């Protein structure tokens, strides 16, 4: 706990003490948590650092789709369902993801490894259909490519 506290303090110290730093700070705090989410303590810490009420921090943390207040998997899978990926066959990728992960959209696998989400356009339309696993773009999705990517992450990337 103490070690975690120190790590969080170090993250916070990298950001200016002003409201405009809030989103960057929340990104960093969330990344530091193994379960890809923001804890109640994180929000309090962020509020006191940038000098805004806790309600404003909660407001932002619940508004943006990249933040989560509930624990998620170690890796976040975000499959694009915007028109271009839709046309290119996002549904067959989704079927395969559901089948392999055994979860529905919005859920986390029992082993805590993956959370499956749908997202709006990721700006990688040249390789539609596309998903992102954390920061990595995985494109030209076919059931085989989905299987390959998941296997790679299960082996630890």
């Amino acid at each position, binding site marked *: 706990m103490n070690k975690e506290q120190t790590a969080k303090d170090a993250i916070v110290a990298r950001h200016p003490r002003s409201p405009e730093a809030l989103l960057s700070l929340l990104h960093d705090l969330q990344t530091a948590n193994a379960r890809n989410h923001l804890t109640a303590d994180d929000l309090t810490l962020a509020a006191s650092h940038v000098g805004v009420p806790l309600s404003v921090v909660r407001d932002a943390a619940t508004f943006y789709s990249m933040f989560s207040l509930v624990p998620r998997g170690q890796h976040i899978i975000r499959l694009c369902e915007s028109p271009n990926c*839709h*046309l290119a066959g996002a549904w067959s990728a989704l079927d395969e993801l559901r089948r392999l992960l055994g979860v529905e959209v919005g859920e986390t696998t029992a082993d805590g490894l993956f959370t499956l989400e749908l997202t709006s356009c990721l*700006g990688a339309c*040249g390789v539609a259909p596309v998903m992102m696993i954390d920061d990595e773009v995985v494109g030209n999705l076919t059931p085989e490519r989905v299987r390959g990517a998941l296997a790679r992450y299960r082996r630890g990337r």
Partner: protein
Amino acid sequence: MRLARTHVLVGVDDEARLAGVDAVLAALREAVSQFDLAGEVQVVETGSLGISGHGVVIAVQPDGVYYAGVTPGDAREIAEEHLLKGRPVARLRLPTTAPVARPAEVLGRQTRLVLANCGVIDPERIEEYIAVGGYEALGRAVTEMTPEDVIEAVKKAGLRGRGGAGFPTGIKWSAVRTASDPERYVVCNADEGEPGTFKDRLILEGDPHKLLEGMAIAGYAVGAHIGIIYIRGEYALSIARIERAIADAEALGILGERVFETDFSFRVEVRPGAGAYVCGEETSLLESLEGKRGWPRIRPPYPVTHGLWGKPTVVNNVETLANVPDILRRGPAWYRTLGTPTCPGTKVYTVLGHVRYPGLVEVEMGTTLRTLIYELGGGLLPSRSLKGVLVGGAAGAFLPPRELDARLDFDSLAERAAALGSGAVLVMDESACIVDMLGSVLRFFRHESCGQCTPCRSGTEVLVRLISTLQTGQADETTLAQLIQIVDAMRVASLCPLGQSVALPVRTALAGFQDEFATHLAGRPCPPCAATARALGWAPR
């Protein structure tokens, strides 16, 4: 650029990364040194070469040879056969029969202004940008021109905002310049989120200094000392490249304190977004920059007088700012030789979907949709026919084939009750269902509606419900009228362009594809709609 006989340009973008470009780069460099070519051949990492769907693409210049689907195992052969013996490796060249296959010719039909350096210079080396005339315009602006001269030049060039609205850039700058508050900001909108669009990402990754130069010129023109680039949080590589570019420019005294040793100072900061399409709307973006949820502000007042922290602020799109250096360097009169009288210059498009050659192209304003699809996009796949085109992204228009001769510029499209938007061109052949595609558009808007105003929050919800009845064969004769009624109400009553713009895809789809809606009304859902219903759990799976 270091002098070398031959340059091997390796396009590095997300697509190339996932195709294993890092290993290809390493193998190429090793092969070059193995054949003792290091003095004559330089392997350069560049942004995307603008060719999608072909894995790792490299270009050998000045030979003009493009290789696609390159793997590490090919490096030795390319080095030995082509670079050493001068015989291009035929089996790796993009095939020569289809337009897909002749990128040099396809590039030749383009007018690359904004993308001129993308894939040509190493975006991580400021020296290369400077070597092609980069930062010359900024240098001249701050040493030889008054801010008013700069604004006048941009006005004369007739530059209009490339984010979608097409507002004259010079008029915007002028309003900030003459605002009473001396504390002002330049904000670059790099929150690219319009579905089917990734032009700004290519500029950020392929030529970051051009954007920085445009921003600094804007800063000088309006009297701002701080520029902020708001980049969507998902664009990790863009953020890294632009941060590197800022550091390099500051180290050379081109940005930061005393730009080119004048009294003008300009600092640039990068801020990541966190996933919200509505933040591409300028007042939502400003709210987000202030650390709040991205809810649009009620306008007026406009950002030019009350922007970031209530101060006069210029908000310009990436592509708009990337036009500025050339306007100053080559002059407004030259700029006006491109494009149309009311929309001078070029426009970057993403041509995607059912075309042979999907990817990014830059052509003059006023180019027809037909040219874009059949010449630059290589046309449709063999024995396929065109059903329609979604122009302008989700907030765009569904156009039937009879609109192929539409000219793509702000005014020509407005006359046809369509919009240029972000420049996304999604081509659909007969296998696509327009009702199903409209469903995808409407779910996008439901997800991205920010929830502030009722017409949009509730309207998008109702629209998705209505389209789902059409897609599952449960619609009745009032469904289409209800769709129109809802979007018309949203158009007049929504707070911001997000809600207002939903009318465009809905109305154009209904007007241009009546037969398609009629068959769905008759209760005969098509295979794409059935697949959607299954995926979303509307019918038993």
